[in-house]
């Protein structure tokens, strides 16, 4: 598995340089292995979404480089990369098009890119949806199904395009914890079938350790890796991991670091990021 190798190299991001000059990301370097699930944990507003937006191509960087599979996405000379289907974002509040049915949403990518004929796209979409346990909801509109289902449909929509990486921006933040735990297992199942690189932002340490190969704990703004944890629990994992001894140990190791940053953020009065 050699796809989806992302290198974040000494990236700096300053917002509104002539005005308030807010330093959001401060010389951040991080390397994400191909096919790895890399979790980014940090308090709200610390700048982790800025990083994701830079990789995705929604925002510019001020200096530094981001490289994926040897190709320079953005750099000091070319501060903004173009968004594309090689690294697809799954958004916090969901971005399934409410005016298209679930099926229409899922086939959107390959059809607009001209990669698949409509009929073939529909067949592939049906198969992938069935695989993810979503067989009955094809003709419904996103507004008619539960938010957990919407998330899964969105992930399937992304995977239809065979991306190198999935960029997930706190996708389960708005779900209740019961639904969340089922979603985690669903995500892992999908991951085991399609080994994409996953770049997952969250503020939930348990979620991070449960899902990730590695967990990068970020400082509060300006954002920069404070501590990187190797999660040495074997895959495939199931919810039983949550009560295992090793899991608790890992949380003990990292909890202090996370709490420290959370406290700093709270004192700085960060608005919700």
């Amino acid at each position: 598995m050699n796809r989806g190798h992302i290198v974040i190299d000494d990236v700096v991001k300053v917002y509104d340089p002539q005005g308030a000059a807010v330093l959001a990301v401060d010389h951040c370097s991080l390397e994400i292995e191909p096919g790895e699930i890399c979790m980014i944990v940090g308090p709200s507003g610390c700048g982790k979404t800025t990083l994701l937006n830079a990789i995705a191509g929604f925002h510019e960087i001020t200096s530094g480089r981001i490289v994926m599979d040897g190709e320079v996405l953005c750099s000091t000379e070319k501060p903004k990369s173009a968004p594309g289907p090689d690294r697809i974002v799954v958004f916090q509040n969901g971005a399934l098009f409410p005016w298209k049915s679930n099926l229409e949403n899922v086939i959107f990518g390959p059809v607009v890119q001209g990669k698949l004929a409509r009929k073939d796209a529909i067949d592939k979409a049906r198969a992938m949806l069935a695989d993810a346990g979503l067989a009955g909801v094809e003709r419904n509109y996103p507004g008619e199904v539960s938010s957990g289902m919407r998330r899964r449909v969105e992930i399937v929509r992304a995977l239809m395009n065979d991306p190198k990486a999935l960029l997930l921006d706190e996708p389960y933040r708005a779900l209740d914890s019961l639904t969340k735990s089922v979603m985690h297992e669903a995500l892992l199942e999908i991951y085991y079938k399609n080994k994409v690189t996953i770049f997952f932002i969250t503020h939930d340490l348990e979620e991070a350790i449960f899902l990730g190969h590695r967990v990068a704990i970020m400082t509060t703004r300006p954002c920069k890796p404070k501590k990187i944890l190797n999660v040495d629990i074997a895959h495939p994992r199931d919810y039983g991991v949550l009560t295992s001894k090793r899991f608790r140990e890992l949380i003990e190791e990292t909890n202090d670091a996370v709490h420290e940053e959370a406290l700093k953020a709270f004192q700085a009065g960060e608005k919700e990021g």
Partner: protein
Amino acid sequence: MEAALRAGEANGAIAALRDATPFRDAAEALLQRIAAIARPARFGAGTRIYGANDAADDIFVLVSGRVEHVFKPEVGAREAHKRMTRGGVFGWAGLLLGQTQRLASVTATEPTEVLRLDTEELVKLLESEPLEGPLVMERFATMIQREFTLPALLAQVRRLSGPLTEEMSSISLTMYRLSLWLKSPRPYLMVIGFALFLGFWYLAVEVWKLPRFREMPGVTSVVKEWLAPEPTYGLSIYTAEYYQHIWMSVWRVTQAFFLATLLGVPVGLLLGWSRKFKQYLFPVFETLRPIPILAWVPLAIVMFIATESAVVYLAFLASFFATALNTMLGVESIDESYIRAADCLGANQWQVFRHVIIPGALPFIFTGLQISIGVSWFSLVAAEMVSGQYGLGYVINTSYMMVRYPTIIIGMATLGIVGYATSAMVRIAGDYLMEWRVRELALTER
């Protein structure tokens, strides 16, 4: 004897079904059909009825006795163990989306009698009942979530499909809503409201003859005139002239509205979509907009040789501003995430415009169109009063000058009706184009 026995059995079955949550309020006819496909069965104490991961073929309705229902842990139910007696329903896993296996194991703790319903047969039966079928399914869903405390993720019941149900669904939904409305106090309050209004009008003008009201045309004279085959003043539902006037006004509004939409929607889309375009055009737009449409009347008469064009122009102008503005707001209100998602998925600018911007702005556009048609009528009437021949505004104006007071009211009432009808047509067109929104709103209705 056998027939009587079977009839007795059937009644017993129906009684048992009535005690079960999903079938509690169902119509007698439906219950009879369900009872017909129900197969009674008996289990001794301690017998296992089925185990988890068995095929989910039958749904069980408890008639008598007691069972213990244990979910397998993966399901994540808040209450894993559940005891059930008469009226309990279990074995419904086959009704859930994506489930073919049992989610629990069930054992009879006492001698137990049940009714078995084959899942697929039940679903087919419900599909053939366009009004009641979906309601029963909904009750199943509620029961599963509430009484069995399953996480919402799993407890999604299948959608009833089938051409009959799909076609009928909007009609049956409307009928159902209508029946609910009729049962509420609303229609009666409405009648009271109109009675008060008309009653006051009648009394004030014709009975009490209050000071300012005496001069006004009374309800009875208006109604008599309106419905008279030979109206005193020449205008009633029986005269051709009445419809000519209506047609003239409607035709003018239609022209104005369509022109305004044809021009206004693209301009609004561009204003919202392209920053540069907005910077160039919006100042001019905003400078012209505050000028009241009717202030244009003399200029319009000067500009246009034919009064007809002048009148349509005025109605058009009002519509245009409303449409363009609302369209622009609609585009600007689209959540950025949708555009970003489309970018990620490889759409080019034009595809984003077609697949995201236009559908996304549609709700606002239709609000704008409803406003625009109202505004169009507003300007049209004024223009007709000032410089028209034919048309409802003209009718009102000349009726006043010729001291035909009841006809004034007829004109006003007709305007109201026609104005409302055209507005409703726009709204219905919108509902048709935006089915997704209608369904979404229906689900979130309080």
